[in-house]
C-alpha cells in the first residue's frame, strides 16, 4: 500500500485524516482510489475535464511525477505520495499603484 499525505486544508474532505493508505500500482490508480474513497476531494484536485488542476503537483517520495512517468509512474508498497501546490505571483511594475484589488 502507498501512503498519501493529505494537505491540511483538504483533510475536511478526507474524514479529517492527515494521511491515508491506498492500493494501486501507479500514481493514477492511487489517486483514483483516493477520489473514489473521498469523492469530495475530486473537485479539489481535478478540473471538469478530469485533469489535475493547474496548481496541483504530485510528488512520489521526493520526486515530481511530471519528471517521472506522470500518472503512469509505478508505485511500490511503502511509497509516499504528496500533493503540493504550485504558487507564484507578484505586483505590477507600477510603483505604489492600487491597481484594482479584489
Amino acid at each position: 500500500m502507498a501512503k498519501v499525505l493529505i494537505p491540511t486544508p483538504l483533510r475536511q474532505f478526507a474524514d479529517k485524516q492527515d494521511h491515508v493508505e491506498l492500493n494501486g500500482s501507479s500514481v493514477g490508480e492511487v489517486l483514483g482510489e483516493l477520489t473514489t474513497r473521498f469523492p469530495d476531494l475530486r473537485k479539489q484536485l481535478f478540473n471538469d475535464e478530469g485533469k489535475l488542476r493547474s496548481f496541483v503537483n504530485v510528488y512520489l517520495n521526493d520526486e515530481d511525477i511530471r519528471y517521472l512517468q506522470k500518472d503512469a509512474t509505478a508505485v511500490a508498497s511503502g511509497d509516499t505520495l504528496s500533493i503540493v501546490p504550485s504558487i507564484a505571483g507578484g505586483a505590477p511594475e507600477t510603483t505604489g499603484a492600487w491597481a484594482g484589488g479584489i
Partner: protein
Amino acid sequence: MIRIDNEPWDVMVTHAEAAFPNECCGAMLGTIDGDSKQVTIAEPIENAYAGAQGARYELRPEDLLAADKKARAAGLDLIGIFHSHPDCDAYFSKTDLENSCPWYSFVVLSIKGGKFDHANSFLPNAEQTAAEKEELIWPKS
C-alpha cells in the same frame, strides 16, 4: 480569521524588508480551529522566480513540500503563504490570483521605501478568478 504571533511576524517583516526592492516569499505554519488560524512559525523561502524579482515571486513546490514536512514533524499545519509587494499596496494582484491555490491563506505585505507599511490576507477560489479578503491580525495591528 488568521492571527500571526509576534515571532513569526518579526520573521516575515524582516524577510520582506531585507528582500526589498525585490519580492520575498515564505510559508506560515501553525494551527487551525475551524475558521480561526494561528501562525506560530514563519518559514522564509527563496524566491525562485527566474527573471527580475521586483514584481514577481515563485515558490518551488519542493520547498513547499519541505515546509509541509517541517510542519508535520512539529505537530503543526502548513496554513498559509506570504509574499511582499515592494513599493506597492498589499492587494491580491491579477498575477497573484492566476498563480494561486485555494487551499491556503495568502498574506501580502506592503513594503514602502524598504519599510513595512501594511498587510492583508486573501483566500482565492479554486478557479483562480476571485479572492476573498480574510481578517488578518498581526502584532500591533
